[in-house]
């Protein structure tokens, strides 16, 4: 799944059309648009809003989904210098600085891309003085976005792409210009997001479903404690990797009608020994 956090509707409009996303009617306070494998949150301006919207978007997603997902922030920025590009050009962010707290955040830069890179400094108010920063670009969301996103996914799955809207001289930017500028970049952005997503596909679980079932059934029958279940699950990985196919079969040699803790412990030890010996 690709999760996008975008501050303004005009920044997101072209993307919503491109991917044919539909408004989630259940999420009224935090606007969210969903498609088959893309979800977009319109966060509003500012790092606190960005953080809240990201938490709202990701908090109910199962861990298995998050492990196969990319979480990205796309939006406007002001550039300190012309050598990052012109208005409407895209930049990949390799460092985020929270202007207020001076905290720094680092998305992992693992994949090839052909855009310039820069650090972004997140301010609480619009920046209209060219010497506010020495290097890089400024925005109002990235630090909050990263802080929230990194609670859910590892930094190799976090991507921040900014579009230059101004050079910190108080230039005005109209919603129409924003919408058109993003429309011109929607296709390359979509390709980039798809590439990140495909590279980061991960196996959700190392255990096949029937082995998980065996563990659950045996754990109930033998009345295993949480610690024992955990030990059994760890060993099951070794068992499966060594070609083991059924824990239930091993369980057939056990007395599964345990009536005491001592008996449970003894049968559990037998099961562990049988699985360990499996090479």
């Amino acid at each position: 799944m690709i999760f996008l956090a975008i501050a303004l509707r005009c920044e997101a409009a072209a993307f919503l059309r491109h991917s044919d996303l539909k408004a989630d009617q259940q999420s009224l306070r935090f606007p969210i648009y969903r498609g088959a494998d893309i979800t977009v949150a319109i966060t509003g301006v500012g790092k606190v809003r960005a953080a809240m919207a990201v938490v709202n978007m990701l908090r109910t997603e199962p861990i298995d989904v998050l492990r196969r997902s990319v979480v990205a922030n796309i939006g406007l920025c002001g550039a300190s210098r012309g050598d990052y590009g012109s208005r409407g050009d895209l930049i990949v962010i390799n460092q985020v600085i929270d202007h207020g707290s001076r905290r720094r955040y680092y998305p992992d830069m693992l994949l090839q891309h052909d855009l310039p890179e820069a650090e972004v400094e997140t301010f609480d108010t619009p920046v209209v003085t060219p010497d506010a920063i020495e290097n890089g670009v400024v925005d109002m969301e990235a630090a909050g976005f990263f802080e929230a996103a990194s609670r859910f996914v590892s930094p190799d799955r976090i991507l921040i792409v900014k579009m230059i809207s101004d050079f910190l001289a108080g230039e005005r930017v109209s919603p129409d210009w924003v919408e058109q500028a993003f429309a011109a970049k929607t296709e390359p952005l979509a390709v980039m997001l798809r590439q990140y997503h495909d590279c980061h596909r991960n196996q959700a679980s190392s255990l096949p479903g029937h082995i998980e079932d065996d563990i659950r059934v045996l754990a109930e029958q033998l009345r295993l404690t949480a610690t024992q279940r955990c030990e059994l699950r760890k060993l099951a990985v070794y068992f499966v990797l060594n070609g083991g196919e059924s824990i239930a079969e091993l369980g057939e040699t056990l007395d599964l009608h345990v009536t005491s803790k001592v008996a449970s412990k003894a049968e559990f030890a037998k099961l562990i020994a049988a699985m360990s010996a499996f090479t």
Partner: protein
Amino acid sequence: MTATYLPNFSHLYVERAARTHPAAQRLFERFSRARIVAIDDYRSVFNRRGQAFREQKRSVKLILAVKQEPFIYPGSHYAPDFDQPNFCYNAMILNCIYDCEYCYLQGMYSSANIVVFVNTKPFFDAADKIRKERGSIYLCVSYDTDLLAFENIIPYCREWIEWAVDRPDALLEIRTKSANFRAIADLPAPSNVILAWTLSPHDVCLAHEQRTPRLAARLAAANDAIQRGWRVRLCIDPILQIRDWRAVYSALVDQIFGAVAAESVDDFSIGVFRMNQDYLDRIRRSRETSVLAHYPFANTKKMSTYAADVREDMLDHVKHRILSYAPAARVYCH
């Protein structure tokens, strides 16, 4: 259309305070096309929570930093001291360019990126201080990394060897899996520097020691060093419970002594897999499909290793095989 991973060292994360050090300048030249990301403190990149070690291994970055104290550590009980007093180690580089499946660094560090400390002088000063205070030092400089593998990038082995030359009260060990002896082959061989090669069966190199040179290449490098008068230690550590391990490790010992004259080797070091239990748990989470990592090890005092009888059996077997070539006094078991 899938994206490709950036090459290793596509980015250098550079502490502001590290920028002007000669070692940093050298790395800027070496990686002149790398993107530089200026940072305040290496720990804000290296120690981040929730990093994906396996994913980062696909495109490793360099972090250039200025180390603060301590610059030297007492030897760990996981590592052998070879009956040497004042056993210490240091770490001028954190992490390794190789990717061994059983490497404890994956459990110890939250990042796969490589930290290079560029302020070298305090490391040498710290070693000198212990040497003078205690009368000697046995210093391992290639723990928590493979320093010789890194020699073409930053020549820290060379600096340590040159340091050792006029310090007869220091004994240096440089442990490696690399075949990169040629990077230091021009140096005269000091009598107080031991080059220690870790050797594994050919199939183990292939299957479990990704990116390392093959056994034959390591043996050739060790042999080259011996021919040039260097002191060489050979280590079979960790010995692993793989299928047919007896035959596999017997063949390894035979192959070693087919390539290297036993009497020309300083000593032999053997040990079975052992690791801090917490590190192993982390490795198991990141290497979900590793048979090696998921082996049902026994745990004692936070150390995971093979059950005592299995461990004894493995050590005995390999030791006896070595004893048919070399005297017991030169074989150390751990």
